């Protein structure tokens, strides 16, 4: 009898089993679907980050700001300065060049084939980072790189004139190799959107300058800002490129954090925690900025 009822029920209300379960155990059932994801994020992202905050603020005798205050020592302060400067410079330069390139291909009289090639290449180049990128630039602008030797033949000795690939300027040149294509990928959709209005503006008698000032830039302002923030983040977190290029001999925050740990051993945990928390704070600022920009774009 009981079985028969159920069978009838199953025919009349096809997915009543699921519906019933949903009615009576909504929380438990949802938990099963979300639990693995949330537990993983908690265990390997939130807790490690919280652990760093805890480790950098807990002394032997209760909470302390002593470790975080270490960051104010000249060496660490300078590491943050150079890291932020490097990311900012490559974000702005990469942003400007990326926008110009994207604009040239979207709005210029350049064959269509070029456009898809540029986008594919940007996808490749923005992912071509780290160790191989450092090698490529060493082959190009290192002491015996092709371009270095070529320029020397024309009497321009880069390394005698104070340039080195293994310092700040070299890092900027190298980072741009992934920053520019990243900008192209991020901004091309917005630029295409913006140029669509140029015809309308022209029909209403606007000059090119007037179009950009009154229409183009206002449309692009937030997307540009958002893309540059992403570029900043991508430069700020970069480790492998800088490490491979300079053999770890440059004072950047990611490199300093890397020096604190070899294998599973951490040399001075509290200092490492403080350095890492500093990075999270900077990135959190960038993230909040991005969220504000996105909210502004939607509104």
């Amino acid at each position, binding site marked *: 009898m009981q079985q028969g009822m159920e069978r009838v029920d199953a025919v009349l209300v096809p997915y009543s089993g699921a519906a019933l379960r949903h009615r009576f155990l909504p929380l438990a059932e*949802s938990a099963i679907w979300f639990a693995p994801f949330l537990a993983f994020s908690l265990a390997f992202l939130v807790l490690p980050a919280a652990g760093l905050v805890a480790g950098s603020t807990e002394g032997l005798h209760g909470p302390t700001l002593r470790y975080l205050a270490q960051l104010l020592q000249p060496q660490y302060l300078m590491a943050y300065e150079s890291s932020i400067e490097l990311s900012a410079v490559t974000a702005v330069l990469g942003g400007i060049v990326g926008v110009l390139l994207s604009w040239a291909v979207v709005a210029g009289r350049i064959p269509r084939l070029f456009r898809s090639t540029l986008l594919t290449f940007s996808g490749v180049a923005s992912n071509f980072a780290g160790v191989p990128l450092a090698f490529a630039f060493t082959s190009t602008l290192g002491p015996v790189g092709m371009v270095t030797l070529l320029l020397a033949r024309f009497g321009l000795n880069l390394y005698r004139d104070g340039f080195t690939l293994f310092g700040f300027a070299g890092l900027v040149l190298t980072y741009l190799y992934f920053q520019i294509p990243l900008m192209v990928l991020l901004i091309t959709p917005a630029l295409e959107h913006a140029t669509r209005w140029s015809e309308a503006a022209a029909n209403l008698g606007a000059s090119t300058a007037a179009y950009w000032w009154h229409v183009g830039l206002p449309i692009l302002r937030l997307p540009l800002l958002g893309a540059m923030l992403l570029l900043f983040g991508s430069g700020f977190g970069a*480790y492998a490129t800088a490490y491979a290029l300079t053999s770890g001999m440059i004072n950047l925050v990611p490199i300093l954090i890397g020096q*604190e740990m070899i294998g599973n051993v951490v040399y001075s945990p509290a200092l490492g925690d403080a350095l890492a928390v500093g990075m999270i704070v900077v*990135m959190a600022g960038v993230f909040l900025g991005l969220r504000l920009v996105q909210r502004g774009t939607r509104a």
Partner: protein
Amino acid sequence: MSVRRTSGFTPWLIVVLTALYFVVPLVATAQFSLAEPGGGVSLQAYAAVLRDASFWHSLRFSVLVALAAVLIGLALVVPAAYWAHLRVPRMRPWVELFSILPFVVPPIVLVFGIVRLYGGGVGPMASPLVMLLASYGVIALPYLFRSVDNGLRSMDVPRLTEAALSLGAGWGMVLWRVILPNLRGALLGGSFLVLALIMGEYAIASMLGFNSFGVYMLLTGENAAQQAAALAMIAFGMVWLLIGLLQLLGRGDISANAGAR
């Protein structure tokens, strides 16, 4: 509306100059990797790399770990994103937030935090391989979430689910036979990006002491400059191949974020 095209010289100048910036390092690397000490061209550096057993070992290791990271990421993201789309739209912003949070924690900080929390302990969590896979799983989340979310938006999740349930499918069957096949295109896009990212990853693997492909490249390059150039060309070819396949599938979103630079 048609696009008003800017005629003239400037767009071309920009394209040519940037093209130079992007092509010259590749030409220089190729030339460096092919040059023979006495002049002339040889494939010796490539032969040396391909003959090296550690090249294949490290490459195999990185490919396997990258595939594992993709599978782990999918196993976490697909159920959560699916359920949020189907039943609890309120949860979607939360799932999204947790998926993009890795942006705030750069790879070097992530591995440092994980080692600090679990590295000193005992049991499975303290195993370097678990920590490696966990870090890569976290790195994969933003890419996988974005592609899964896009995929779910492009299909009628409730209707497909109800149809399958009414035909007697269980939840496992719904996911495996209905949702996943419809997500395939979107999933491949995100997965290829993650593969490209993790195959050359250096920071996390080196901190945990693994001889990954990235670590192998650096160790080899420190001693043999020509082989370094050859490896750079090989790595470039691999990324090109993965992104090319992704484009061929035509559904990829090839923008990247902080990732594993």
